[in-house]
Each structure stands twice: as C-alpha cells, then as structure tokens.
C-alpha cells in the first residue's frame, strides 16, 4: 500500500503541475522516470522459438503502457544482446580486454548513449518437458555498482503452457516483476466485469485485465446492467429486469450462482456500492415514493435504512474505498446532474463538480485521493469526456478529448490505469488507458460493451 500511495502521489503531482500550465490535455511524460531497456528474448527447442515474438511484444506493450517508467525504443540498443548473466561484465571495460569490443556485453554500454538505460531486462526462452520456460533477469546499469551480483535486481524462471497463451502469461508476469520495482501493483490475474449485448440482450460479462477470456456470467435474456463488485472480489451486484422491474441481484463470482437478496417493494432498486469490508451496501431505491434516494443495507437486503432525503434524484453512490466513511454520488440538487460528496450518514453534503454541464459516473481511486468521472464540460449534453479530480484541492485534469463519447471510468487496483467505455470507434467498447490519459487501447470489439468495473482482487 505504501508503494501504491507513492506511485499515485508521483503521478498526480506531475499531472496537476502540467494541468496548471495548459488546463486541458494529457500529462507530459516524466523526464525523471526510470528508463528501461528490455532485449528481445530468443529461444531454443522446436516450438518455443515461434512463441518468442508474442512474448517480446507483450513485455514491450506492458512496459510501454505503464506510467511508472519510460521504455527505451529497441532501435537505440547496442549491437550485442546479452542472454545469460555469464555474457555480462559490470562497470567500465578493464584495460586488458581484447581490443575494441562490440558494445552490449557491459552494463555500461547500456547506460551510455544512445540507449541511456537505467535498467536492463534480458534473458532467453526454452522448452522443458512440454512447458514454455523463460529465464528473465533484471539489472541496474548504475555506473557506481561494479559488482555484477549487486547489479542484478532479480533473476527468475517463468513457466507457461507451450502455446501463445502460455507465452503471453509468462510475459505479463515478467513485466509485472520489473514494474513492481517502481511501485507498480501487478494487474496480472485481475479481471474486469462489464456489460455486453453481443448475445442480443444486455448481460453481465467478465474478462481478464488484458481482454482475454471474455465470458458470459448472466443468461437472463432481459436487461442486466450496472454491475459493481465487492472489494473482496466474491460478489458482483447488478440491476436486472428479469422480474419486469429494475431490481438488484447479488451473484457469487466464486460459484456462479445467485445469492439471496431482498429487494424493497419499489419501482426501482439499483446502483450498488459496497463498504470496504464487503459486508454492507448503499444503493438507490424509490421505496419511499418520489425521486430515487440512497439507502444502506446488508448484502442480503436486510437492515434497510435511509441515508438521503433530498427530494431530487440521487444515484451512483460510491463509497470511499480507503475510509469507508464518506461517499460520492450523482444528484440533481442543483439542477442538471452533478457529482456530490457526503459522509456515509448523508450529512455534510458538498458539490465536487463545477456545476456546469453534466457530471456523472464518479469512481474512486484505490487510495481514496482522487475520483475519475464523466463530464460534458464545454460540449453539448451527452458529449462526455473522462476527467480526474483531486478530491481535496478540486483540481481537475482531462484525460480524453475529441474522441467520441467517453464514460463510466473505473480504476485498476494499481491506481495507475483507468478502464472506461468509449464510442470513439462507433458502438460502445471497453478501453483502458494510463491514469494520465496516455496509452489508450481497446479490450473489446464484439457487439456493444459498456460499464466496466475492475475487480480489486485476484480470482
């Protein structure tokens, strides 16, 4: 958690500094971030060599999409590529080395121009008893470290199935181990729950964090939408019309079965958010008539009690995952929908968004310091972009612009990535980007896909 906080504060200090200068736009790459070179791995054997291209490209894209480091283009690398620790020499070349060595085998060659790497990743692949095996190393090139053993940060063996998915899996783990050195929380093994209509009706789906293994969770043939996941990763709560009216359903992600939940007698029960201990929820209900208000209950619907009494629409409550004592929601208190903050008893209500246009879809960063949200700032109704706000200073940076409708941002557990829904390519699809707005890429392309939620726990 300490490293996570560190990485976030780093990210947002930079982000907001830049935002002050240019108001709108993405954050500049940090020149002070570590520069990392990772060689193209080669392999021996009959099948493994054909898997190295996908291994190398996966490692590269994982590193390039991280806001924590700068990845050095491979065209700048020295000519000789080390593969095993025995290839390497530390520090400056000694006087009695053979004349004019081809650069690449000394860590100093990587520290020098043009690569100017602070760190070097290298290794090789092989196959062993039907498995894909990678030996992955990571070195610092710091010139003051002359001992190779000291320069090595880690050397690990990664294994996977002897096919493309095994190679991709090994690459993700190797990249995650490198990023972990700089405060990166690994996303490997995390999942994203979302809504897809690719079967003809809106159902709840899940996929791996990188878009692989997309699979259907609900099969109601109705409208099932607005998913949220308990912080412990066990329950997905969503809203379904399976009984004719928008009602909440709890579903176990462990057993793929419905869990008991008592819906209040109301025309609408929807939009669940969990407390940090995963034991209670807050949601919107019309149980008392009038506009939907916020209520709290246990995860089976018992212990139902009222939180707000504003007389206007109150939706999309999101409990602060760090404190558990305050929440943000979307309210019509000042006319068009805006993002508000209040404590969990419904008191101390403050508007967070600027009050212009429509602000909606708030989502907390894992450390509770920021929210991402969708805002029509400067555009017609419906033309949303993703923004991030420091909840204390209210300073806001814009992460998307002039690329269609972008909404429903949700943070990755590493606090450094944001998943969102975008119509930039036509129908709504799930996209992911770094929390500074760089590195946008789609995860889905079948049917229409929306309302992504990053599951804050491994399966």
């Amino acid at each position, binding site marked *: 958690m300490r490293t996570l906080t560190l990485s976030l504060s780093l990210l947002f200090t930079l982000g907001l500094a830049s935002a002050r200068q240019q108001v709108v736009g993405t954050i500049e790459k940090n020149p002070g971030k570590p520069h990392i070179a990772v060689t193209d791995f080669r392999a021996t054997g009959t099948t493994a060599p054909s898997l190295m291209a996908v291994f190398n490209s996966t490692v590269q894209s994982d590193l390039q999409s991280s806001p924590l480091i700068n990845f050095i283009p491979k065209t700048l690398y020295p000519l000789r590529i080390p593969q095993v620790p025995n290839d390497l020499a530390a520090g400056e070349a000694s006087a009695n080395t053979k004349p004019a060595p081809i650069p690449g085998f000394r860590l100093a060659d990587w520290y020098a121009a043009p690569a100017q790497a602070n760190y070097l990743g290298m290794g090789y692949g092989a196959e062993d008893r039907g498995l894909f095996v990678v030996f992955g190393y990571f070195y610092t090139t710091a010139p003051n470290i002359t001992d190779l053993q000291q320069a090595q940060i880690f050397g690990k063996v990664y294994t996977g199935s002897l096919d493309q998915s095994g190679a991709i899996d090994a690459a993700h783990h190797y990249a995650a181990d490198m990023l972990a050195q700089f405060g990166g929380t690994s996303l490997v093994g995390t999942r994203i729950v979302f809504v897809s209509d690719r079967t003809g009706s*809106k159902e709840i789906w899940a996929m791996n964090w990188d878009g692989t293994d997309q699979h259907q969770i609900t099969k109601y043939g109705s*409208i099932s*939408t*607005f998913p949220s996941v308990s912080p412990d990763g066990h329950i997905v709560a969503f*809203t379904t019309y399976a009984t*004719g*009216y*928008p009602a909440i359903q709890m579903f176990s992600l462990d057993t793929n079965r419905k869990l008991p939940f008592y819906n209040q007698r109301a*025309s*609408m029960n*929807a*939009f669940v958010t969990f407390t940090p201990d995963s034991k209670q929820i807050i949601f*919107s209900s*019309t149980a008392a*008539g*009038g*506009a*939907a208000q916020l209520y709290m209950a246990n995860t089976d619907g018992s212990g139902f009690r009222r939180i707000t009494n504003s007389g206007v*629409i*109150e*939706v*999309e409550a999101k409990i602060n995952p760090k404190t558990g004592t305050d929440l943000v929601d*979307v309210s*019509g208190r000042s*006319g*068009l*929908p805006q993002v508000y903050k209040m404590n969990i008893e419904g008191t101390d209500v403050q508007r967070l968004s600027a009050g212009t246009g*429509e602000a*909606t*879809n708030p989502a907390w960063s894992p450390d509770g310091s920021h929210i991402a949200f*969708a805002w029509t700032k400067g555009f*017609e*109704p*419906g033309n*949303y972009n993703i923004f991030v706000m420091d909840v204390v200073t209210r300073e806001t940076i814009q992460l998307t612009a002039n690329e269609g409708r972008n*909404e429903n941002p949700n943070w990755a557990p590493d606090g450094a990535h944001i998943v969102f829904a975008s119509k930039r390519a036509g129908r709504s699809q799930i996209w992911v980007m770094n929390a500074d707005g760089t590195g946008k890429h789609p995860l889905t392309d079948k049917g229409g896909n*929306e*309302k992504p939620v990053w599951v804050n726990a491994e399966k």
Partner: protein
Amino acid sequence: MTKHKIKMALLSALVLGLSAGCQKKIPPAPPQVPAPLPENNAPTNKPSIGYFTAEPSTVTVGQPSSLRWSVTDATSVKIDNGIGEVSPNGRRGVYPTSTTTYHLTATGPAGTSEADATVTVSSPPPPAPVPTGGQPTAREILAKQVQDVHFEYDKSDIRGEDQAIIQGDASALRTIFQIDPNFIVTIEGHCDERGSAEYNLALGDRRAAATKDALISLGVPGDKLKTVSFGKERPICTEAMEDCYARNRRAHFSAAQ
C-alpha cells in the same frame, strides 16, 4: 309475472332434483304462491309515450348517443334497429355508423302507440372497420386511443401542451377499466440517449410516476396503474438529433403482463 312463475317452478324442480340426488327424504318446500294479478288496474287507454329522444341527436362516427324513453299503459315496448324488447322506462347507448331513425312501438291491451327518434351522424363514415364483433376491447382502446406523453430534457413534469393528451388518456383509461375491471396498465418512463444510463433510470421513474399522478387526479383508479422505468434502454429511434431525442423522452402505456 309469468317469468316469475317459471323461475319459481324451475327452482322447485331443482330443489326436488337435488333432494332426490342426495337420496334424503326431506319433504319439498311448498311452492310460494304468486301474488294475484291486480285486476282493477287494467289499462283502458292506448299506451302513452311520455318521450322518446336521442341525446345528443347529432354525433360523429364512433361516438355514443343515448336513447331515452318513457311509456305508460303498455304491455310490450319494442325498438327496432336490433334493440328489440325493452322495459317501459329506460335508456340505451347506441353507436350508429350512419344517420339512423329508431322506431319505438308500444303495445297495450287497448292498442298501439309509436314514436321516432333520429340520430344524425355528422361526418362521412370511415373505411369499414375490421369486424371485431362489437365494442373495441380494452387492448384495442389502449393501442389506439392512449397516446404517449412527452417531456422536456431532464424534466418530469407534464407540459402545458400535453394537458389535452393526458386528459384524453385519462378518459380512454377510464373506459378501459370499465370494459375490463381486471385490466392493468403499465406506464413506462423513457429518456433520450444523452444523459447517463444511471441518472436516466431514475429520471424515467419520475416521468412514469408524474404521469400516473396526473391520471389519478383525472379520476383514473391508481390501483390499475403500474410504473416502470426503462431509462434509455428502449429507445424508439436512435438518430442523434433533437427530433429523435424528443420522441424518446416519453411515458408510454402498455398492457401489464
């Protein structure tokens, strides 16, 4: 009186039959003696027709007109055009599709009296309706006469320009619940695509509820009306233009499942 006699006879037979069926020897109840006919009041005059009117006497196609009549000293009162035998005093709603003269014939022991009432159908008759066997069903009225109510962006109050529509809806819904007291109508609240799906779910709920409240204030029984919001999940058009947005911001009526 004759009818009464027959009824009593049937009842007695039924009681007897049941007793026999049960094989219990309960003595049959003695049949009730019918009251004697009042012999002193036999009419001596021809039947007198107090009035025979059609109100309104001019209608457009599909609108009802009410025939009313009052006859004394008659043993039989008949109206033609498919109405047949009626009681001496009464009223009957008719739905003539063209101008029709109704002929009333009152017959008594002392003779016969006659009168006419004409309902003028003002507009030319529409294309021949699909023969549905008489009055439209509740479902047909819902589909043809109950219109969607529309709303401004981010609003859920009934607009001034929609007052006439909601009054028409109230009238048609009252008719529906008279025809079929078991009928339940669902008011669906819908929104255009611009706001968030989350906010629109709650906004559609407000639109359906505001429509229900307005109908209740116009005399529609609230226990026959359910509401459901579809937010922006069920648009009737998908073009990104105000014309389409306006059509989607609606309260729509459907038969409850």
